[in-house]
């Protein structure tokens, strides 16, 4: 089991950051790697069990199922159903916490998955830096412009 953990600080109140990331179908609006997304079966994007089907800007297609969503904890957990990354048992959690000192947000994004041993290093880099840190950087830029 490979574990990836990335965290950052975003200079905006946690409820405002949560308003952006809570929509399971909204990745294209804030994550730079994502081109488009839809929720399968015409379900709402906050229905537990719904599946988002999205395309990366580099052409890959990924399907992910929403496993848990908590407005109380500012937390969202999902699993990959299909992806070109060659991972299995992939479960990730995106979680926010308020930093009362300065009214900022502590953001954590973590994942666990299985993959062939020789691909571990590359996948940790892709997931931890490309996807997670890339998303945080975009959020930091987005909120610093406002």
């Amino acid at each position, binding site marked *: 089991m490979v574990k990836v953990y*990335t965290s950052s*600080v975003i200079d905006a109140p946690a409820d405002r950051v949560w308003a952006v990331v809570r929509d399971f179908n909204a990745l294209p609006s804030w994550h730079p790697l994502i081109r488009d997304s839809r929720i399968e079966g015409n379900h709402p994007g906050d229905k537990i069990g719904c599946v988002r089907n999205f395309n990366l800007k580099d052409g890959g297609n990924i399907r992910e199922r929403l496993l848990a969503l908590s407005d109380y904890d500012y937390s969202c957990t999902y699993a990959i159903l299909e992806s070109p990354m060659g991972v299995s048992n992939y479960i990730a959690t995106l979680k926010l916490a308020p930093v009362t000192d*300065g009214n900022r947000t502590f953001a954590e994004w973590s994942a666990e998955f299985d993959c062939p041993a020789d691909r571990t290093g590359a996948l940790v880099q892709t997931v931890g830096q490309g996807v997670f840190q890339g998303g945080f950087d975009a959020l930091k830029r987005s909120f610093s412009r406002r």
Partner: protein
Amino acid sequence: MVEVRRSTIVDAPVDQVWAVLRDFNGHERWHPAVAESRIEEGRAGDEPGCVRRFKLKDGAELREQLLRHSDRERSFSYCIIDSPIPLIDYVSTVTLKPVTDGDRTFWEWSSSFAAPQGREADLAELVGENIYEAGFGAVQAMFGQQVRHGATVPRTRTMATPADARPLDGGAVVVERFGGPEVLRWERSTAMPPGPGEVRLRHTAIGLNYIDVYTRTGYYPLIAPPGVPGMEAAGIVLDVGPGVHGLMPGDRVAYACAPCGAYAEVRTMKADLVVPLPDHVSDRLAAAVMLKGMSAEFLLHRVHAVREGDTILVHAAAGGVGQLVCQWARQIGATVIGTVGSAEKARIARAAGCAYPILYAETDFVDRVMEITEGRGCDVVYDAVGADTFMKSYEALAVRGHLVSFGQASGPIPPIDLAGFVQKSATVSRPNFGHYTSTPNEVRSITDRLFRALANGVLQVEIAQEYPLREAAEAHRALESRRTTGSTILIP
């Protein structure tokens, strides 16, 4: 419940910050409010269960216990055991998390607690700013970090000056001068903030005892008028002074002892004198039973250890203490003989467990005791009547019996002929309740047994009269004219 949650970012790797925080006793090295700290019983600062005892720079003392500690989660939780600040059921958690983006540390410090009504916001601010944010600022400064927004600079207000470190006004019944019930007046009185070893209470129920009449008339020199009478009460701890352990604001407590001062809404007194009440003993019950119940306990278990098979004689068996002695002695397995003044009181004594109530006005109690015991006499006689009964109580004793004289309601006891007691190898004692209750351990040992006896139903107490505290004079009139039965309490 009040919940407080504060968090910050420290510009240092999480392992370095955890190295500073993980020792439960290390706060004296980094928290600006802490003057000195040690772990009790020589334990280590990372052993869950250990207790840190520490002093703040303003002198207040606290004890806190480590509940959990995790290097994996970089987190620990603890609770307050003793504190002069009314943070009730306070449990707090410190958690560190890495900020991988920049190799920094997210630090969250949170707690939940109950607070006295009206003080929630005040105490939440005290905890959030003076403890948590002050700690954030100090640790950030250790790592050379500029403190953000100024919000984390320790405030000038110190922790142990909560808003109630002021005199507290309340009403009290005051004996203006020695005399009849009319000398009892309702006046304003003040409970000062508790000093070292003291506790401040808000009374919820006050016991009425005949000794209060003696206090009021000056028969016993217990107060110098103007003064507040009353020896017995239950209440809630408002706050505690430095060096007080085992009592927390919000605790339910009771006491029965000198000095006087119970006829008041609020009172500051020595913390050693009060005992926490178990859940099954209500405030009203405690106010009704503490003094009489502790008296019965010390008579039956300490002055003389009554055993199964003993025969005992109790004077005034239908009185407050007498009824409890009857109930308890019967449960021990003793045969209880009692003297009473009327048929109605004989009925009351019998209901309390007195197998042989004797109407002393109609029947000579010595003859009757000898008849009941087939000439043997009693193993112990409890006599608070004094002049009228003392020598006859001696006559009612068995060989090697014990005469316990614990009062003289009918007048002073004449000089005794000690040598004459050789006829029975008798023991005579004149116990003073105060000498059996002079340390907290003695008091708690007595009240532990009393509370158990109340819990398992050995002792039954009837609260037959309740008066508002302001009407204490009316309660005294009723007591002195023998219009009361059972226990009487005063409600503030």
